[in-house]
């Protein structure tokens, strides 16, 4: 290589992804900092078909290269994934870049996985930012292992880039509106039980709130499913509603990790297969609602869910680490087990804890005349109450523990003082508080390997 010629620029590979519907994503790129050539783009993914805005490959490359601007100064810990978010009005685009380190050709390089959207989609994208970033972060973890082994990272990254394109396309057409008309929900019924059984509605809403507003609604009738989806979304914040999806009438979407409420249509055989891994990777436990048979099941509470999730993630990464061949990327459908860990596949359980908060609300709201704003107002009062209770609980724990410096040992007093002696009520308020202060469940309920029943036994003895 002493010819004096500059090193040849690596070619930029590009693949077009067929996505159903209008995909707001312009491109996804993988770039890295070449120690000789500087920032280089290695791969471009672009949705096939018409797009909202056209970016030439040159423009995409220009943008992607610049995501690594300033990263020569990067001093992050090994394995850290940093997120950069650009809104470039001059170019009319927004770029989300995940910066990480990885080994390429024996050298440690700074890499960037980016997605590019038109700036006009900023409002659409922002609520979904966390979902996209968390999913990309995990695939980067997998990609780093692949790079470490000297394999091509692109095949691993494609495992998540394509689903994210599909997610964004589906959200473009089927996301729940921020402003839900109460007339499209069960709460507009003349009387309780008109659309669905009284106890079913109570259970569904209660469990939905206990699982931090994260639910999947399955059924054979899309209208029925969507009515419940909208009803559950009434209890979410506007931002969370924008992260919820209605079911498609003709064919079902696949389950997407991270959405708050999603409607899913059963197939012709009357069944819907939930991917274990994806459900487990949801940031919050999920409530499973079947509108055909009026059943409500829920996953274990937050701290257990997070523990299970991390265990499984570690197991998945471990499996990947032990993979011997580049061709053997374990598919997502495989349940990872090893000698130290066997995941419990029965993650959905019956709703164990009744509450009084939702029960009385559901009972009472139907006493108010429909068609006016009475029920909306009453709903707002109910939500205000829950938000305030959550804040009070948070503040109570904050006071007791000196902002987490001391362990929390007075759950019983908390229940009495804050009128949360009914388990369901406590779960609901704790779920609200968890969204405000992530990790609260683990902190309050002690060591994460306790199950709910054990934890209560332990805590009641305090």
């Amino acid at each position, binding site marked *: 290589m002493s010819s004096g010629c500059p090193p040849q620029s690596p070619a930029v590979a590009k693949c077009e992804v067929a996505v159903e519907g209008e995909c707001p994503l312009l491109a996804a790129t993988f770039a890295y900092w070449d120690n000789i050539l500087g920032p280089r783009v290695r791969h471009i993914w672009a949705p096939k078909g018409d797009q909202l805005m056209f970016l030439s490959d040159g423009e995409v490359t220009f943008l992607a290269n610049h995501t690594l601007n300033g990263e020569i100064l990067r001093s992050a810990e090994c394995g850290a994934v940093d997120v950069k978010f650009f809104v470039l009005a001059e170019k009319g685009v927004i770029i989300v870049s995940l910066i990480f380190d990885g080994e390429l050709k024996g050298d440690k390089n700074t890499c960037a996985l980016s997605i590019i959207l038109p700036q006009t989609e900023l409002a659409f994208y922002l609520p979904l930012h966390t979902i996209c970033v968390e999913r990309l972060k995990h695939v980067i973890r997998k990609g780093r292992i692949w790079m470490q082994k000297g394999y091509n990272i692109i095949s691993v990254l494609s495992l998540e880039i394509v689903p994210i394109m599909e997610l964004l396309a589906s959200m473009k057409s089927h996301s729940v509106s921020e402003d839900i008309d109460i007339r499209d929900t069960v709460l507009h019924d003349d009387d309780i039980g008109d659309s669905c059984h009284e106890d079913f509605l109570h259970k569904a809403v209660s469990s939905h709130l206990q699982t931090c507003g994260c639910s999947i609604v399955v059924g054979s009738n899309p209208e029925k499913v969507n009515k419940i989806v909208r009803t559950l979304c009434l209890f979410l914040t506007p931002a969370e509603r924008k992260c919820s999806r209605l079911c498609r009438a003709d064919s079902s979407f696949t389950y997407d990790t991270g959405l708050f409420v999603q409607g899913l249509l059963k197939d012709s055989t009357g069944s819907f297969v939930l991917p274990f891994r994806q459900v487990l990777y949801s940031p919050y436990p999920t409530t499973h609602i079947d509108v055909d048979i009026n059943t409500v099941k829920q996953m274990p509470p937050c701290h257990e869910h997070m523990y299970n999730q991390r265990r499984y993630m570690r197991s998945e990464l471990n499996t990947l*680490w032990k993979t011997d061949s580049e061709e053997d990327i374990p598919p997502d459908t495989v349940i990872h087990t090893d000698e130290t860990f066997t995941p419990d596949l029965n993650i959905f359980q019956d709703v164990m804890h009744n509450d009084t908060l939702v029960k009385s609300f559901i009972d009472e709201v139907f006493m108010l005349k429909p068609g006016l704003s009475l029920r909306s107002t009453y709903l707002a009062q109910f939500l205000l109450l829950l938000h305030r209770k959550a804040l009070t609980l948070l503040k109570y724990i904050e006071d007791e523990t000196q902002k987490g410096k001391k362990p929390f040992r007075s759950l019983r007093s908390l229940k009495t003082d804050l009128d949360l002696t009914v388990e369901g009520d406590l779960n609901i308020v704790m779920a609200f508080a968890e969204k405000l202060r992530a990790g609260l469940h683990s902190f309050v309920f002690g060591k994460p390997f306790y199950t709910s029943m054990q934890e209560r036994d332990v805590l009641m003895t305090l």
Partner: protein
Amino acid sequence: MIGSPDVVAFTKEDEFGQNNPDPWSIPEEFSIPLHPLADSNPWAKTSYAKFTKDFILISEFSEQVGPQPLLTIPDDPKVCGTFDLNYFSLRIMSVDYQASFVGHPPGSGYPRLSFVEDSRVVLGDSKEGAFAYIHHLTLYDLEARGFVRPFCMAYVSADERKIMLQFQELSLRFSQASECLKAGNRRAFAKELQRKLQDLEYTHSVLQREEGLQREAGPQCMYSAHAVEKANELANVEKSIYEHRDLLRQISCYHCRPRRDPHAVTCQNYTDKGRKREDVQSPTDDGGGGKGAEEDEDEGIKRRSSYTPQLIKARSAKCFDKRLKTLQELCDEPFYEATMELLKETERSFRGDLCYLHTRRMDKALRRRQRITNFLFEEDLGDEDEDEGGMLRPFCAVNHDLDNYTILNPPPIVLGPEPVELDPLEPPDPLDPASETSHTQESELVLEEGNLDSSPSDQTLETQESSEETKGSFSSDKSGTGLAEKQQSLASVRSELPDPDSDLTPDADHNTDLERESSSEDMDITAGEDEGDNGGDQTPVSLLEVVSELEASMEDDCERRSGIESDLLVPIDTACCMAQEGFLYEASAPEAASHLDQSSHHQSSQTLVVNQEPQSLLPLQNDYAVGSLCSESPAAGLELPVGLLGDAVSRTTAEDGSDCTMSASTGSDRAASPLGYGGVVTLRQRKRAGHVALRFVRQYPFAIQALWCLLSGRTLVVLGADEGRVRRLVAALALFVPGPGKCGERVQAWLSCPFTLTDLKRWKLIGLQRVASPVGSSMLYSLSRYSRYISILDADQKTLRCPPYRGQLLANIADHRTYIRRGSTYFLHVQSTLCRLAAKAFLFTFTHHLHLPVSSTEGPEVVEGRRRCFLQEQLGLGEEDSQILLYLSQLVTQQYLQPPAGNSAVAPCFSFNYTTSVLYKI
């Protein structure tokens, strides 16, 4: 049945897995932690940042020294701690995408300014624990390389989520600041260009004269080297003049450029003065028109300023010899000041923990949807529409399509000094009292705001309040002002300043806060009037008429009223309310008589018969009046009541009440209580009152009785010799007074003369001075005379005389064994409980079937029975608890049917109870 989690699997790893790690297992750097830090302490996520709280950093990419920090907001070294601002500036300046080409583009003889859009970036340094929203912008400087100076303004926080969740709001705020700064910079740049042009023209004329002299002096056909040099110099100067003129033309055409940023904001101009200037000469005639032309007009004025041109020497300064202008010098002073003010405001509004910011905004949004019951226990929402539009929505990170974005209500950028009489080129005369005053006012306001901060951070700050709280001192803090108030104040100050720059163009899509507030006020008032009129017109002559009218035209009423209400009030069917009221009349009248006979409880519902509530006659108080004294506030209770009490027994005349016109004292300890002086009680004050309330609950086992009295509408008199103590107690108990009024009109914090029956209707909580004098004996006489209507809490003797309460509804907020440690936490707890009570009252009030006869044969007794049954069986309330709901429901009904004009509180129902009072002691 799906099984429970596999406990064995969980414990296995802890026993074996970690003790015997698999040598082939994945290294930790490729895996994820099983127990992240957030699990062990959810409050410690941001603890590894080297700075103590969020701040704003302005940095520059200097052509001489590279990236450098310029200033921070707040300007306190403690805030940044050991955080390396130089390094962080380098980091944030190295991500700028702005490729602002300046120079000679092909085919153009002159340097071309490139108007680039700002770029926005969020990035983080995970190792430093610092994350930032960065707003890149370019300013123009005639002496800078390529005429551009790249800057950035960054909001630095330890919480990445806080930045991303509030991205749009941050973007909006920083865009406003940036536009303001750039507008001032363009003005300064144009000013500099004009001076340079004047210098060049002057130099040109000098050179021309010199050349002419040389030409005349020398031979006709020969040029000396000196003459050639002069000619070249002249040519260079001419070229430079053309270039500078072109630059001036370009900067004047700034507004004509197409905007590429769909989220761009514009500086707004609320005065038209700038446009009315005449006799201006535009430096360009390129048809810039519109805004550009307006700016040119300014330039025309500027060119005639009193600047003395100077001769420019041919030698140009070397790059590193010259001193680059500071940011302040690059920008016109008023614009710079306004920018700094906007940034300070931004820093204030984002201060505090995300969790509290989020809840506060959610709280506000939800309360806006229940305006009907807000008056009961909630602090006044005011007209802070900016919060709804500008704060909450971006925070929620939803629905930010372009249309919505334009709805966002930015703080008004009404900037600049007024140059109509003055030369706009000249800086504001420091000796000019007008400009001095306006600036002083603004700066004073800023200072005041700094001191009076009631920003969201209060909530988090209060978590560190233990030592302060345990001392138990409750001092009045009349200083707290809301955000809207601050903005309004600032806007009002600024609006006095005329428009200095025609590039501050009005934007129809961006309404000002002032406009918004005034319009929403108008709407509210209109709504109130409409409602009042309706209510007035329909005030029944007799109770029977009410019933018949209601039966006949209930449906019509529904339709008509819902039509009238339209968007102004929550469209709620009034039929139930009216019907209820009707049946209340129907039921109450005979019941009242019977109850009088039976000495049982009677909830008076005759407030609608009262011609006018005294307070409703009072002039509107300023929503944002802070610290106004009682003497200015008729609501403080010094006005004579002129209405008639519904209670025939206690019918009084205006004269009866005259003896209390001198009743309020001017005690030295007035500052101890914010109540009763016409000032808006702030959230901060309410929280502080929460601390005293918690002590009261802990100290007095009979606190629950006192709270019940207040919540059920029975006037509570706090008797004591120590004014400060009584005031504190009253301020604390005022938390439990339903519908206290925006300025606490229903509370008299300190009274030093006997009260009358009229006062009992007006005040639901009274602090009464105990004096050992003839006046004191007459006061005691009034106490005993009206004892059947009131409860008496003796702060000195620590006793309470009131009817017994045996309910459960209040047990949770009045448990003296509570483990709640802090007043602010207790306040939150009380807030939730009262919120629940308000919701139940709403439900009870607007549940139609309770208040309407199912059939024509059904009598009022049946309806009344149904109501009682609902309270007891559906809501599970006992007799005393029902009284609370009934009272609250009455207030809601009254508020809805006859909303008080302006800001005065809803007229309270006067209720009394013949149940024997009991004396409680500690």
